[in-house]
């Protein structure tokens, strides 16, 4: 769907992107992660042809990115807004027509969206009469009205209250189910794991990690398990077949320990060692969250 190859972008004084390559597959929800200033917005602007890269190429469905692709992309920038003095209806028609829709088609689709999101009464209202959340909703509709193949959202959930954020999230998922590819940038990890199929992590103008979420998580498994047991406290004296990371006492005779497997051993060995000694209530592998991976990776570079 979208193939970004070796993009370099320099501004006077600093480098925004140095040799970044990405592959976004059709139908994916792709998360572009990274701390502030990592180059996410610069990359997104290049895909939207707002700026051009110093070197490198972008391919859209196998074609070199050009003006004709603009109408197939929907873009919700991080810095967003609408004309304050213009009526919502007129404004949305205008934005849709700039994306190549006819006036009649724009009106038809707007009516459907307005009904869906409970915005029917807004048509004649001016933006300045709407609350911030309402403006965001309107803006989202403007982004997807021309039914783009690729929807690019820069920090889509910033500025939304939790209720609207949930509505927008559902709409994004539905658009994705209908076939749209979604590329969104964020530095909030909680949304990543539940939404994204694949991610790329940018830091200081470089891509430091990318791939499918499942694959990434597997790479970052580090054989750490949480075990809870009930009974007498066990004294680990180093003879056990695993490393003890820490232990905590809970209610009465409940204890929680975190362990790391020794090389070549597995969780069954741990259980075999423990079962004769106590009553196990839980054993779970600790898979690092995207947040932890993110922080670990960023700190490693720093």
């Amino acid at each position: 769907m979208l193939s970004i190859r070796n993009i370099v972008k320099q501004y006077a004084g600093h480098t925004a992107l140095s040799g970044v390559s990405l592959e976004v597959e059709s139908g994916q929800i792709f998360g572009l992660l990274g701390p502030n200033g990592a180059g996410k917005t610069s990359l997104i602007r290049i895909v939207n042809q707002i700026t051009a890269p110093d070197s490198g190429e972008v391919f859209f469905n196998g074609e070199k990115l050009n003006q004709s692709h603009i109408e197939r992309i929907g873009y919700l920038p991080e810095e967003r807004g609408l004309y304050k003095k213009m009526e919502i209806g007129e404004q949305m028609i205008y934005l849709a027509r700039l994306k190549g829709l006819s006036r009649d088609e724009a009106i038809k689709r707007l009516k459907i969206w307005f009904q869906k999101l409970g915005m029917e009464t807004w048509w004649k209202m001016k933006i300045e009469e709407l609350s911030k959340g309402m403006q965001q909703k309107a803006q989202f509709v403007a982004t997807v009205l021309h039914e783009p193949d690729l929807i690019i959202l820069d920090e889509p959930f910033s500025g939304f209250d939790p209720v609207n954020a949930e509505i927008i999230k559902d709409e994004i998922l539905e658009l994705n189910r209908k076939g749209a590819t979604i590329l969104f940038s964020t530095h909030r990890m909680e949304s990543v794991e539940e939404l994204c199929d694949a991610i790329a992590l940018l830091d200081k103008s470089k891509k430091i990690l990318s791939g499918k979420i499942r694959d990434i998580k597997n790479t970052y498994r580090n054989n750490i398990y949480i075990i809870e047991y009930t009974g007498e406290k066990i004294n680990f004296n180093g003879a056990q077949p695993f490393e003890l990371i820490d232990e905590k006492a809970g209610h009465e005779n409940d204890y929680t320990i975190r362990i790391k497997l020794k090389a070549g051993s597995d969780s069954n060995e741990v259980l075999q060692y423990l079962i004769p000694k106590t009553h196990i209530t839980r054993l779970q592998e600790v898979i690092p969250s995207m947040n932890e991976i993110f922080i670990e990776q960023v700190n490693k570079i720093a």
Partner: protein
Amino acid sequence: MNKVLLIIQREYITRVRKKAFIIMIFVVPALIIAMGAVIALIAKNSGELSNQQIVEVVDESGVFAGKFHDIKNLKFLNVGQSLTAVKPEVKKDENTSALLISKDYTKNGAVQIYSKKKPGFALTGEIEKQMNDIAISDNMIKHHIDTAIVRSIKSNISISPIEVTDTGDKEANVGAAVGVGIACAVLIYLALFIYGAQVMRGVIEEKTSRIIEVIISSVKPFQLMLGKIIGVGLVGLTQFAAWIVLSVIATKIAGGAFSSPQGGIMGALAVLQTIHFGFVLICFLFYFLTGYLLYSALFAAVGSAVDSETETQQFMFPITLPLLFTYILSVSVLFQAPDSPLAVWLSIIPFTAPVAMMVRLPFGVPGWQLAISMSLMVIGFLFTTYVAAKIYRVGILMYGKKASYKELAKWFFYKE
């Protein structure tokens, strides 16, 4: 190109729909009519007497009695009586005054007029004129000069300037040329500022409302800038067209109301016809359009470089300076010497030409100078648009960065 049309359409319609625009369309011609009416009234009142006046002449010299002739609204009565006998009548009626001519009438203060109200200039002027004529012919008789001959050779001289041109001599009116020249210059000066500033405010609005990035993900920054400039320019043209049409209609109506074929508005219009009006109008439109394109591009660049209107000051000054400079020179010096080297240079340099050339035009400008000036205007606006577009495309995406001239120069050299 289709998208530029859409942008032009939006810029035009949102502005034309505004109440302020509609009000302005009617206010300005109304002001012009009001001004015309005031001028017409003043001209009327100072030129002739507005109501019936009676002057009682008490002539102690015996030279003038019976020789005054009545004109419209002014009647002379010869009374043999002394001044004291007439005075009560003067006190009673404010349209009656007494003229006392003492024996030695050539001495200063020897002729006096008594009235309840201070007499107008029209009255005293008419009496002075008649008395001078009477005194001159009286003296001629005294010196045995045949007054019949004098009368036959006496002429009423007023100068009418004739311009010599290739196409034949034509009547010229210096006053009208100055008037039209300055009026056009002022109008262009104001229009460049008003519409240039509208472009700038439009750019700032798009930037501060943060809609800019949404739009330039659909169109190129240059298309947006161009659409805005053309849209606002069309608003300006619409406004001018409406003013011209309304003013013509209004003067036609007002011309009837204040009808006096020579004075007032119709007189002014008659005078205006001594100038190639169509030619001046075409040049006005040309210089308005090219001047507007030249300056509004710069205004757009300024708008893109700042975050709010208050920050525009430092950039506005150098842009407005050449215009302001020419404007001040135009209304003070240029019209007195429309062919001086200064005037010629100013009317050729694109930044000052729109104002300076308008002042010179009614006096007649050599064709080659006009040709150079016009071609430089076109080159000038292409140049400023090119420079402005390069700054604009970077500036509109820059937030919270205080732009300096150094910064602007850097933006100019950014690759896309």
